[in-house]
């Protein structure tokens, strides 16, 4: 008994010393600590098209063209990156970039047209020594027709396309898988080693990456653009939203991304924190198979849309962390039109009457496959349970099937059963979502139109958009296509996410981007 008591005393003693040490320590400035939602599996920025990977690596790299993620505007404008200007040939198949002079990668390798060519060869030329199938598939999967690249002179570089693509600059600016590695790093670390060494031209240099634990970056004092004010920035991946919020509340991190729905109000009320609800181009949507079955009838789709109470969903169920969906594009998207009304007026009685005119007067059953881990707009299951209750009132029974990311991906890409739907936070930092999800020529399983939505007028507008003379015209044609899809009840958009982000009040000069990508590197720390 005496030994046991001694043992417990020692244990408690150690705990007390440790706790006292923790309390006695003082806070120092200069290092910005950010709680992110996930880590990157490796450091090769060209391989992925996922925001968690891109976010982790964004401070270290630059693209030829970029978006200004710090701009406080309706959407983030395209700005010059490593290219100072660009032009497109008359046939729309050649893009010429004038490159920035005097830029060096973090390892001292000079940036020039050869360096850009090396990177794009890695994505497009299967015979290239450093060709990577994953990087290649990612690059050409989004940019239809990307064929190759050419060095014109030391600071002039060309991209070649097999078909015109007016959205090329928009996509390259929004998706960091087109950002550039140092060719010197490839030669030093080899084809596989590049995934463990991030050597770019970005405003921060990599100091240390410990998988799943931390990414430590220090300011690049030779950076060609605006220099960060903090000396160091640390990304700390915390998967669980409640734990992320706790780390912010305990003052262990300066910024926490994606706060949980149920904690936003209490953190907002605490004077130690600032909470931002700026929006993300992500529209929570249910997408159902339309090639056959109940959803092939536009009246059924309209009735379902009319039965959903989007206002209550956004304001009560999701506690103001989202707004009712008005369209397919999300907040922060260049094509988002804030003048549009709520997607379909909430009218359960009207919905019942409309349904009575179809083959399903007494309703029908269907199911959704959902993977909440895939959806950054918080409160996914709360939202679907609410919609389930809404639809029950018009006799439509919706079954919710939660699956992991792998099952969701497999379901998304195949042809589906008549009563099968998937849920999605549709959108990205580029306006490509309509091409990806609503183009009739891309019907699943042979394309990205997972619900097999078909409208010849929409297809014609999108085809015209590919050969548009400017990005503005490209966007205008997409807006027209969106209008047709809305009139057609082409899917079931629920809410536009506002993406709650939190920061300690001592974090100044930072606003979250209205985007999936975030760059807090220009924040300042006031002690």
């Amino acid at each position, binding site marked *: *008994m*005496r*030994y*046991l008591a001694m*043992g*417990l005393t020692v244990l408690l003693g150690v*705990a007390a*010393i*440790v*706790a006292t*040490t*923790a*309390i006695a*320590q*003082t806070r*120092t400035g200069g*290092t910005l600590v950010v709680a992110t939602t996930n880590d990157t*599996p*490796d450091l*090769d920025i060209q391989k*992925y*098209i*996922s925001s968690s990977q891109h976010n982790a690596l964004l401070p270290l790299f630059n693209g030829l063209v970029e978006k200004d993620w710090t701009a406080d505007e309706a959407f983030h404008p395209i700005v010059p990156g490593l290219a100072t200007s660009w032009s497109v040939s008359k046939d729309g198949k050649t893009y010429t970039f004038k490159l920035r002079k005097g830029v060096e990668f973090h390892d001292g390798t000079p940036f020039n047209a050869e360096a850009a060519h090396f990177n794009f060869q890695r994505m497009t030329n299967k015979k290239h020594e450093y060709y990577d*199938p*994953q990087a290649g*598939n*990612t690059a050409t*999967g*989004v940019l239809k027709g990307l064929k190759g690249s050419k060095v014109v002179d030391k600071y002039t570089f060309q991209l070649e396309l097999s078909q015109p693509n007016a959205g090329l600059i928009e996509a390259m600016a929004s998706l960091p898988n087109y950002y550039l590695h140092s060719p010197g790093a490839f030669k030093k670390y080899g084809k596989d080693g590049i*995934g463990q060494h991030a050597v770019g031209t970005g405003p921060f240099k990599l100091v240390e990456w*410990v*998988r*799943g*634990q*931390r990414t430590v970056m220090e300011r690049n004092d030779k950076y060609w653009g605006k220099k960060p004010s903090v000396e160091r920035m640390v990304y*700390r*991946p*915390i*998967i*669980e939203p409640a*734990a992320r919020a*706790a*780390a912010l*509340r*305990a*003052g*262990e991190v*300066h910024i926490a991304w994606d706060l949980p729905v149920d904690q936003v109000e209490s953190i907002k009320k605490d004077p130690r924190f600032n909470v931002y609800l700026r929006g993300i181009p992500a529209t929570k949507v249910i997408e159902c198979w339309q090639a056959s079955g109940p959803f092939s009838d536009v009246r059924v789709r309209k009735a379902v849309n009319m039965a959903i109470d989007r206002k209550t969903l956004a304001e009560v169920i999701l506690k103001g962390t989202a707004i009712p969906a008005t369209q397919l594009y999300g907040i922060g998207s260049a094509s988002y039109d804030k003048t549009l009304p709520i997607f379909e007026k909430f009218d359960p009685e009207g919905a019942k009457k409309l349904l009575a005119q179809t083959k399903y007067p007494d309703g029908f059953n269907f199911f959704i496959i959902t993977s909440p881990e895939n959806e950054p707009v918080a409160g996914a299951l709360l939202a679907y349970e609410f919609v389930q209750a809404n639809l029950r009132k018009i006799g439509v029974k919706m079954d919710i099937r939660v*699956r*992991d*990311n*792998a099952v969701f*991906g*497999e379901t998304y*890409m195949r042809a589906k059963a008549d009563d099968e739907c998937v849920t*999605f936070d549709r959108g*990205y930092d580029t306006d490509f979502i309509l091409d990806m999800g609503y183009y009739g020529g891309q019907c699943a399983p*042979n*394309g*990205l139109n997972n619900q097999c939505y078909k409208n010849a007028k929409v297809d014609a507008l999108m085809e015209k958009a590919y050969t548009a003379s400017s990005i503005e015209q490209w966007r205008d044609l997409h807006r027209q296509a969106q209008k047709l899809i809305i009139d057609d009840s082409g899917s079931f958009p629920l809410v536009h996410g506002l993406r709650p982000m939190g920061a300690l009040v001592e974090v100044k000069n930072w606003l979250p981007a209205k985007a999936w990508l975030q760059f807090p590197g220009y924040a300042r720390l006031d002690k």
Partner: protein
Amino acid sequence: MVAFLIRRILFLVPVLLGGSAIVFTLIQLAPGDPIDVLLGVYSSPESRQALREAYGLNDPPYVQYFRWLGHILQGDWGISIQQRVPVLTLVMEKFWITLLLTGAAGSFAIIVGVGAGIVSAVKHNTWIDRVILVVSVFALSMPSYWLGLLFIFVFSVQLGWLPTGGIRSFIEPKSTLDVIEHMIMPGIVAGLTPAAIIARVARAAMLEVMRLDFLTALRAKGLSEGAVILRHALRNAMPSIVNMTGLQIGYLILGGALFVEIIFSWPGLGLEIYKSVVGRDMPMMLGLVLFSTFVFVILNLLVDICYRIMNPRIQSE
């Protein structure tokens, strides 16, 4: 003893083979594809097909399994599909981190579990015994996920005593006790369930021993109660306690601390198992299963050796 050891080590081979074959089959039967996860839903069918080909995932399952097995026999554990890093490097990197957590949780479980079990047996049918029983039922029935969040709220957010998670701090200057500070809460939360199980086993084993006549004889000879309990009763109850402790620590390493690792952002094997399952990362999952089975069998072997040392009757059989 040598023959016993050789027999047990040879026994490892079918266990490892069987374990890997079962896991391989289960992964094959499960829906979902690593390439879909890797490329995301915006990839084209041609892109996915090309990458599947490049990673050898189009081959028939038995070809994939035997190719993996052939490589394992040559010491090559393969490359993680998701992370493009050798599986063995990743597993070892994570193993030491999990071992830290398991060490903290195991120490807590042994000290508290055995201590509570002894006290409960000695104070049998008193209020102390009942309190310990109630607390152990509470510890057994509370999900570690919930307990973890509760601990974070109380000890980190409200009291500010301990860090919320991770393995080290970034805002505060580094201290030598930094890692220990980060280990305390996850260690206690992960150790609570094993502690409760060990406490119940220890209590039952002690009660059984304490009914035996030789303890009365020792007391009659004038030995102090402490010496009777700790030197004689506990020693006789130890085989059952060691057996259960070994199993519990094996369980912790095998992913029992999974939820604790997620809640406390502890970057160990549990978190890696979760990520590889979600990403359908076959080489990583097989590597993790092979490694965990190996560790579990070795732990059991150590427990059996301890058991034989502590219980001479088994040794003579």
